[in-house]
């Protein structure tokens, strides 16, 4: 019966749901994981890179993380072609604001503007919604470091730490337990990101090819957006695995001691 209410985005179902929007969110639930964490001195975005095929000719250097403006970057999960259209639009919005006001666009305004565009696709035109969820990281002089998440419905929220894509609920519950909002520096947040990713991704071993990590920090009077190099990412992964090995070795020792 609900099938009758699916095919058009611009109508409600009898239970008051917008099926097309929900199906879009389903599509994202199967896409590569992205997570974001705010620290005292910066924000980071980490993303699972799914397109690792031997035959792929790696022309570009970032699969999932895009710089939007001097003070903002984003990571996407969902249909890549939809994501390309949206990131292009985000860049244009940021530049137009910059041209008109001669200052960088405040983070929430950029998110809000794009979300208004996304919302239009759920109400007018008979076009399907964008199958992309976006995590935005940025800095502005009003609210400092910020992290936002937007989804196909056009809703957005500000977060201290969040995750989208495959296994995002597992990642979020882990973040809920382990994230401390006070006194966390970026280095610690990066360790946490690697930990959460390795536990929630569907792969056995985490390598630098499968992960993209980007950070946003303030350097004096300007923002610095760094996409971490493969060697640095691998170093973080190795550190994490060393810590894990140490922790499990200590646990074994304790068990042995308690048994005997």
């Amino acid at each position: 019966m609900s099938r009758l209410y699916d095919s058009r985005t611009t109508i409600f179902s009898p239970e008051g749901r917008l099926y097309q929007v929900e199906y879009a969110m389903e599509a994202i639930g199967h896409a590569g994981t992205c997570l974001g964490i705010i620290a005292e001195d910066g924000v980071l975005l980490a993303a699972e890179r799914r397109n690792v095929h031997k035959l792929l000719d790696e022309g570009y250097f970032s699969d999932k993380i895009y710089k939007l403006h001097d003070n903002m970057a984003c990571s996407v999960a969902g249909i890549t072609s939809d994501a390309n259209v949206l990131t292009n639009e985000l860049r244009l919005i940021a530049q137009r604001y910059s041209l008109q006001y001669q200052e960088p666009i405040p983070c929430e305004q950029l998110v809000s503007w794009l979300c208004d565009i996304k919302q239009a696709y759920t109400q007018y035109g008979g076009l399907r919604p964008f199958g992309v969820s976006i995590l935005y990281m940025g800095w502005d002089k009003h609210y400092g470091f910020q992290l936002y998440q937007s989804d196909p419905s056009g809703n957005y929220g500000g977060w201290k730490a969040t995750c989208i894509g495959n296994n995002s609920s597992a990642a979020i519950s882990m973040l809920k337990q382990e994230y401390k909002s006070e006194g966390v520096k970026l280095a610690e947040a990066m360790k946490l990101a690697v930990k959460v990713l390795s536990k929630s991704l569907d792969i056995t071993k985490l390598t630098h090819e499968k992960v993209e990590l980007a950070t946003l920090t303030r350097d004096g009077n300007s923002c610095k957006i760094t996409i971490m190099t493969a060697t640095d990412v691998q170093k973080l992964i190795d550190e994490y695995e060393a810590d894990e090995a140490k922790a499990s070795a200590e646990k074994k020792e304790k068990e042995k001691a308690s048994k005997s």
Partner: protein
Amino acid sequence: MSIMSYNGGDVIAMMGKNCVAIACDRRFGIQAQTVSTDFDKIFEMGPKLFVGLPGLATDTQTVAQRLKFRLNLYTLRENRAMKPKTFMSVVSNLLYEKRFGPYFIEPVVAGLDPKTNEPFICSLDLIGCPMVTDDFVVSGTASEQMYGMCESLWQPDLGPDDLFETISQALMNAVDRDAVSGWSAKDYVIEADKVTIKTLKARMD
């Protein structure tokens, strides 16, 4: 009254050996009245790319802002720095779009290729006709004077220090012979590893 001499101002760019220099005067006036003495007409578009926009002051500001808009989007999309020659085409396109109601500026572009560090200078007219040279380009209310100075002083393959001297002398002496230019000058010498910016105080009138 010519609209191109309403505010006054000049820019020179010169080619050196593995370097380029670009210099401008700093006067902003409304006909005879000088309003400000720190109005620079040179804008940084990239770490080794500069554009000088002499002419009507309001258009100087607007064109600089609109060029930055286009350059920023290019950098974000292509993930690389724009070459000076490409930038010249961007300026030309922006100006020709207003063919029948133009911006009253005659730009000068100077820079080094982001990868090869090859030097590049060019100038354009107010509707975007580009002209690439391998010696010097001048633009502004004292252009005739600047042409004379550059033609006499410029030599090929000048090093950064000699180029700085040459461009400074050429600009200073040319603007001294022009009522609506002057009030100190700003020089940018662009080399592969650094950009040296010097402000020259000469006849403050």
